[in-house]
């Protein structure tokens, strides 16, 4: 008999139904450590900001002003004495007391095609299986919580849809629900010409067909299909989430009217509604040419809404439960090419994070004077996955995946958490 795709510790195997059933006696459950753990984990959330193509560490979190490769921009002080960032991040500098910067990333891939997947799958050594993206992993471990909403929502420019590939070996049901340009999935609402009773009837018919179909076949795709219909049903109850008119004009101004600003403002709403993992992607950061005007245009448009959402989550008390991560697939070369650009540089780059389980106002790791190499202990993406899981209350030493009977670590066993940034 094949084992289910559940991670081995019992508490992670609790289904939503089991959990809801247990919640009837919540007062008693809270007193029990095992259930308290589950509840604590289910309340954790993640905001994952993906700057696709590669933000330049030298024009953001690790400036090297007045050096050979430092570029034209200045470094500015932050709210934390001794920590400086690029002048393109004045608002992030203001909220530095909430942030942790890691300047010692040294990863494996210098191409987008390999880097985007390997970084988001946390698989630095490529073990020949397709690991889930962080969003799918968190969706599996933490589920939907008590929001009743899809656990992994991806807000992105352009098209949306259900993206099963993110789930890797977990199976398509842990894929991402992508909201193209922040809009609800197409055809989400029941057509006006169909009655509610007819809608229920057709869904019952579909369920019946699915059950018969799956009896002699692999259940993954059918589960994913059911998941999509379930998501649609969940979202139909929360159409208010997509009502952009509900945002205060002041917030729209603070976040910016561009894609990244609007999408981060929507992400705030999704987090407030209880979505477990919200990924926000911004494309177009691959500045091989005219890097300094390019990053000079892009970085401030990240800086404003990033600082705004950090402040808003803090003011709402949500940073206690929400892990915020802002990163790319790699950094950019210190060397400035003849196109006045910077190319791909996985050797020494940076990311920023904040929130649950993360120390506030710290920098971990350092690069050398010119920013070419990591001058402290290097950290691969596996180290970060250990760190993030720990920050979310998931112990990578006690938890493992079960890939059709093959036990696999949830974070690379050759890596360890960055304890220096864990609260």
């Amino acid at each position, binding site marked *: 008999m094949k084992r289910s795709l559940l991670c081995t510790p019992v508490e992670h195997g609790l289904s939503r139904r089991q959990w809801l059933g247990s919640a009837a006696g919540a007062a008693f459950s809270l007193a029990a450590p095992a259930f308290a753990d589950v509840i604590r984990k289910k309340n954790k959330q993640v905001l994952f900001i993906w700057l696709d193509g590669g933000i330049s560490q030298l024009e953001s979190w690790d400036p090297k002003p*007045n050096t050979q490769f430092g570029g*034209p921009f200045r470094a500015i002080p932050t709210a934390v004495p001794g920590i400086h960032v690029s002048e393109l991040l004045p608002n992030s500098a203001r909220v530095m007391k909430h942030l942790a910067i890691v300047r010692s990333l040294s990863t494996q891939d210098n191409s987008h095609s390999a880097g985007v997947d390997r970084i988001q799958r946390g698989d630095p050594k490529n073990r020949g299986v397709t690991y889930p993206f962080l969003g799918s992993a968190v969706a599996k471990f933490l589920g939907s919580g008590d929001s009743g909403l899809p656990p992994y929502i991806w807000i992105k420019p352009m098209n949306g849809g259900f993206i099963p590939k993110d789930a890797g070996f977990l199976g398509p049901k842990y894929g991402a629900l992508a909201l193209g340009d922040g809009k609800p999935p197409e055809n989400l609402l029941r057509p006006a010409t169909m009655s509610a009773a007819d809608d229920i009837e057709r869904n019952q018919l579909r369920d019946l067909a699915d059950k018969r179909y799956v009896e002699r076949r692999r259940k993954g795709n059918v589960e994913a299909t059911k998941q999509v219909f379930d998501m649609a049903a969940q979202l139909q109850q929360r159409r208010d989430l997509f009502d952009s008119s509900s945002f205060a004009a002041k917030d729209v101004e603070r976040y910016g009217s561009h894609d990244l600003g609007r999408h981060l403002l929507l992400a705030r709403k999704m987090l407030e509604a209880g979505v477990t993992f919200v990924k926000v992607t911004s494309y177009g*950061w691959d500045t091989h040419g005219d890097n300094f005007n390019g990053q000079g245009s892009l970085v401030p448009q990240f800086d404003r809404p990033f600082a705004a959402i950090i402040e808003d989550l803090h003011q709402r008390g949500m940073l206690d439960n929400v892990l915020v991560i802002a990163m790319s697939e790699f950094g950019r070369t210190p060397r400035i090419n*003849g196109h006045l650009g910077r190319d791909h540089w996985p050797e020494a780059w940076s990311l920023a994070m904040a929130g649950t389980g993360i120390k506030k106002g710290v920098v971990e790791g350092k690069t050398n004077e010119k920013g070419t190499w990591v001058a402290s202990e290097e950290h691969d993406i596996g180290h970060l996955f250990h760190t993030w899981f720990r920050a979310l209350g998931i112990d990578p030493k006690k938890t493992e995946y079960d890939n059709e009977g093959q036990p696999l670590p949830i974070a690379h066993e050759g890596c360890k958490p960055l304890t220096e940034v864990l609260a």
Partner: protein
Amino acid sequence: MEFPVPPEPKKSPPKPSPPIAVDQQLCCIRWSPDGKLLAAGSFEGVVRRWGTSGASFTELPALKGHNGWVQAIAFAPDGKQLFSADSWGRLSAWSVADIDAKPTWSIPAAHDGWIHALAVSPDGKQMATAGRDRVIRITAAADGKKVHTLTAGEDVLALAYHPDGKSVVSGDLKGTIKQWNVADGKMIREFDAKVMFLRDRIQDVGGVRCFAFTADGSTLFAGGSQPKTGAFVQAIPLILAFDSKTGSSKEIFRGANDNEGIVLDLHWHPDGFVMAVHSGQPGQGKFFCKRPSDAQPHFAQALPNPHSFAFHGQRVIVSATNANSSGNGRVGGKGEYPGNYSPLHVLELPS
């Protein structure tokens, strides 16, 4: 728009000489009016200098005191002063005769941040500077005191004085050219160069990068590109000509494709043609000369990554980043990391 037709230039290509080695990347290169001093702003906060005599170039001590990039430099028309501006906002004046290289004056925060452009008035009495802080500062050349501050409203990438000295034009990232009355600081009119701007995803791309006026001021040339993408920046190099009286415009140069990049420097040659460099994908680019009325350049010299050039008579010096300047990931073993550099290519135009 009709252009006067100057004498037919000779078709033979410029004669290249061995390049002058420079161990840094350079932003901007200019020649003193008498042709005896070549100056170049660098990516490493200095102004490099070479004494020039005949075919020889002798490097002089660099001018220090700047930070970041020295992207904008210009000589006074009488050749006695050199002005330089950096990406941290400092504006400095230097006596050309002072071999010890002390600034005659220096304003540490003339702008808040990156100064992209600097132009000196035809009478040499004042200069205009502009950059990311979206203002144009008019500064007295004698002592560095501020005369005016003009609100440009956008990130200004290019500046030029009209030859009559009464106005200055600014070109910005969004493809707008504004003409300003120097006396009262008021905007006179706008020219439309929006073709040089693209909003790609969330990136502002392109912009008006350089200017040149004909000697009589009747035509303004604006260099830039028609951007096709952000990030990688695919762009077709472009030069627009604007009639100073009517404001009408005409495209006088369009590159062959969007790998050729951006026109980054532009001059008017007294013999009646524009000279320009464009730099596209790493390793590509060219210096070329073109009469406005001609369909094609009469000279085109391929060079890797040219960014700026200066000329004196028939001699042209082009600053261009070395070939093989790009690449993902490490170059050589860990611990080694060579930077790029900008050799100076010497071209002799046929007289």
